[in-house]
Each structure stands twice: as structure tokens, then as C-alpha cells.
């Protein structure tokens, strides 16, 4: 009787796991089956193919926007996290204000960032629809994610490391740079990976700022679509679902690649 009850529990757990995995695998397989057959050499690699017939510009734009956004928001975000966790006095009104701003910013839907970016960068600064406008919009949008998870990473560094360093006569900056930060690298990296996923998957904020042109940008003030934006536009137009699925496959492969790459860098940076 007891054994039966025990087995029953296992079965329930397995059903739960099974459902989770089948849903995920189902979506993945569905996209792969619908998309893989439409991926051709031209679609992936031919730079000179007519607009919309090749993904090269979109892959390029996606990677460019990810890198530029991280170049802006990672230093600011990690820097803010260091300030909040290592320097700021908890409870000061200034710190409370910053925290409230971060909480609020992280809860705002991306379309609102898009609207802001459109009005400020595109209209007021006259950057027009451009990669720059997209980058600066998304950079603000991902800042709260980077700050909050980097702060968690810094919090998890044992205080004994800090004390040990101070006791050897090291100053605060040296201690943070040589001891605290290296120990926090894995956590900070996780926040970067999360951010990459967010940028690659972003549409609303980018449609309004970087635009939907499916061609190769000639400079940073050109309009160009990322993979996700391209997918969004061809899906909405409903003209070519095959290409939409094929783009989805490439998008997933790109995210996998970027995450693996980030992990690789993290392993290099991590203290043994």
C-alpha cells in the first residue's frame, strides 16, 4: 500500500516534468519542422540577394545592436550595482530614490520605451529611424535587469573576502577590483546572458526606433531591422509564413550561439 502511494507520487512528478518538457520540445520541433526546410544557402549567406530574400542584414543588425547596447549598458549597469552594493549607505534618500527608479523602470512595457525613443531620439534629436536610436532605447530598457542581477551577484560574494583584503592594507577600490568583482563574474555574466536574450527578442521598442528596413545598413544612422523585428513584420504582413519560420530557426540558433559565447568568456574570466 505504502509502496503504491510512493509510486503514485513519482508518477505525478514525472507527469509534471513530462508536460513541461513536451511543451518546450513541441514548440521547438514545430518551429524546426516548419522552418528548417525553407532555409537555403541564399537565405543565410547571400549578401547580394534582393531585400527580404536573405537574412544577412538582419543577422548583422541583431549582432550589432546587441554589442552596442551591451557596450553602453553593461558598464553603466555594473557600475551602478557596485555603487549600490559596495559604496552606498543603505537607507539614504538618494539610494532609495535610485532603487525606486530601477524597480519602476523594470516594470514598464517595452512599447513605452519604444515610444520614448521614437519621440526623443527619432524626432527631437533628429536621428531618424536608425540603429543608434534603437541602441540607445534598448540600452535604457535593459539597464534595470543588469543592475539588479549584478547586485545580487555582488551580494553573494562572502564578506570574508572583503575583510581579508582590507586587513592586508588594500583600499576599497583595489578590494572591489581584485577580489569582489572576479568572484561575482559568474553572476554578472548570467545577467548579461539574460540581457542578450532580451535584446535579441525585442520588437516593440525597436520597431519604433530602429525601423523595419530589411536591408544592410550603411552606417549607424541607417534604419535596419533585427531578426525579431523582421519576423514580426513578415508575420503581420502574412505574405510569407515560410520565411518567418525559417527566421525563427535562425533566431534561436543565434541566441544559442551568443549564450555559448558568453559562457565561454565567463569561464576565461572566472577565478579558478
Amino acid at each position, binding site marked *: 500500500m505504502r509502496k503504491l502511494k510512493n509510486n503514485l507520487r513519482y508518477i505525478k512528478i514525472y507527469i509534471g516534468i513530462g508536460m513541461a518538457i513536451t511543451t518546450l520540445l513541441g514548440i521547438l520541433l514545430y518551429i524546426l519542422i516548419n522552418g528548417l526546410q525553407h532555409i537555403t544557402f541564399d537565405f543565410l549567406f547571400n549578401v547580394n540577394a534582393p531585400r527580404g530574400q536573405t537574412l544577412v542584414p538582419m543577422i548583422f543588425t541583431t549582432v550589432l545592436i546587441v554589442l552596442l547596447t551591451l557596450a553602453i549598458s553593461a558598464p553603466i549597469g555594473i557600475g551602478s550595482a557596485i555603487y549600490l552594493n559596495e559604496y552606498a549607505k543603505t537607507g539614504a534618500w538618494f539610494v532609495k530614490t535610485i532603487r525606486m527608479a530601477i524597480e519602476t523602470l523594470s516594470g514598464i512595457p517595452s512599447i513605452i520605451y519604444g515610444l520614448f525613443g521614437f519621440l526623443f531620439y527619432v524626432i527631437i534629436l533628429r536621428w531618424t529611424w536608425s540603429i543608434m536610436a534603437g541602441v540607445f532605447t534598448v540600452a535604457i530598457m535593459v539597464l534595470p535587469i543588469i543592475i539588479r542581477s549584478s547586485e545580487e551577484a555582488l551580494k553573494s560574494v562572502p564578506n570574508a573576502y572583503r*575583510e581579508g583584503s582590507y586587513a592586508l592594507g588594500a583600499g576599497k577600490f583595489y578590494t572591489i577590483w581584485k577580489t569582489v568583482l*572576479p568572484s561575482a563574474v559568474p553572476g554578472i555574466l548570467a545577467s548579461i546572458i539574460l540581457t542578450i536574450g532580451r535584446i535579441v527578442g525585442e520588437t516593440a521598442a525597436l520597431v519604433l526606433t530602429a525601423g523595419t528596413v530589411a536591408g544592410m545598413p550603411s552606417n549607424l544612422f541607417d534604419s535596419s531591422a533585427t531578426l525579431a523585428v523582421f519576423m514580426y513584420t513578415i508575420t503581420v504582413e502574412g505574405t510569407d509564413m515560410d520565411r518567418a519560420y525559417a527566421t525563427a530557426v535562425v533566431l534561436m540558433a543565434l541566441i544559442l550561439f551568443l549564450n555559448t559565447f558568453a559562457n565561454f568568456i565567463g569561464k576565461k574570466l572566472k577565478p579558478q
Partner: protein
Amino acid sequence: MNKFQLKDVNLWYNDFHALKDINMDIKAKEITAFIGPSGCGKSTLIKSLNRMNDLIDGCKITGDFLLDGENIYGNLDINALRKRVGMVFQKPNPFPMSVFDNVAYAPRVHGIKSKFKLNEIVEKSLRDAAIWDELKDRLKKSAISLSGGQQQRLCIARALAAEPDVLLMDEPTSALDPISTAKIEELVIKLKKKYTIVIVTHNMQQAVRISDTTGFFLLGELIEYNNTEQLFSMPTDKRCEDYITGRFG
């Protein structure tokens, strides 16, 4: 000769009066032990000798702490002070780096860049901490992979690499097994030839075995401070006698 002179030292954590009117001289090149029950202020006092209490919010200190006649809470640079007064903590806390980088940490902080010089300091410090033979082939290995006793001796080597005058040890053996403890005690006795050592210990036998002078603390007061032999054989204060004979604490 006195290394430290403490005059009318009082310390508060917010409203809690943790040290009350402490007056004591700590002799150079001797081992001074602080004993007493938990919460008596002995750890607090040792931490104020290298100003580690500065890291705690709401800590207020009055009185004079003279190191070689100079007030350490005066104009002395705090990092220069901590270079002169090294510290070993209760729980071994090597950094998550290689053995070499751990020991070379302090010299690098204080501006030594030459690889040759660093090699020299690392070897000397590890030898002084009696752990060179065990670790000489593992300098590149992570310090986290060492045993607890080795980690603690590595932390001693790391402190010695800063070339301090004084070594503060806050219950350095309380997290270690008896064999590691014995090794560290032996090492501490050897080190007093060159360094002034202040050690906080819960273990009275340890105080008897290694220290020259012992201070007994109770509720933030220094109750009795004397030659170790005398303090343990003929305590003058009733509370001290009760404590060392095991009637409380």
C-alpha cells in the same frame, strides 16, 4: 618595550557599551592572549587594533590607541596601519585565487610589481608560515582546494607577506582539527621572535601553552591582565579564578 599602549579605551556599537575603560600595554615580540567568555569584548578589542571596526556602522571609539607611540586613530593612514598590523581571522578566508596570488596580494597592493621580488617574498612568507614544503609544487593551484589547516597557515603566510610588525589572530584555530591546531601553535611560538602577536582564544589551554601575557575580559572590562603563568596559577580576581577553573563561561 611596549608595542601598543591603550589608554581609557571605550567602544560603543550604537547604544551597546562593548568596551569599558580599557587600559593596557602590549609588549613587543611577545604573545599576548585575550581570554574570556563569548561577548566579553575580546574580539572587539583585537579588531580595533587594526581598525577593522571602522567597517561596522554605528561603532564609536574614544580613548588612545598608541602603536609605537603614535595614535592609530589619528593621522596615521588606515592602509599603512593595516600593513603594519596584520590579521588572521577565525575562519580561514583565502581568496579564490592561486596560492601564489594569495600570498602576493599584499606586496602587490603595496606596489611591488617585479616578478623576481614577488617570487622571493612568496617563498619567504610560505617558509615563515611553515607551509612551503607542502605547497611549493602547488603554487598555481587554487587556494580553495587546500585543507582547512593549510588554508589557515596560508592566511598567516599571506599576512606575513605584508611584512607587518604585529600579527593579530582572532581565534585562529577554533575552526581547525587538533593536529592543525598544534601546527599553528608551534608556528605562532616561532613567529614571536620577529613579530608581536595578539591572539584571542576560547581555549584556555592554548593561552597557557603559547602566551607570555594574558588578559581576562568580562562584559567589556579588562578584569585581570598579567603574566600568563601568574594569571593562571594565582589569579587575584575572584571572577577570573572562577572562569579559569571552569566554574562559568
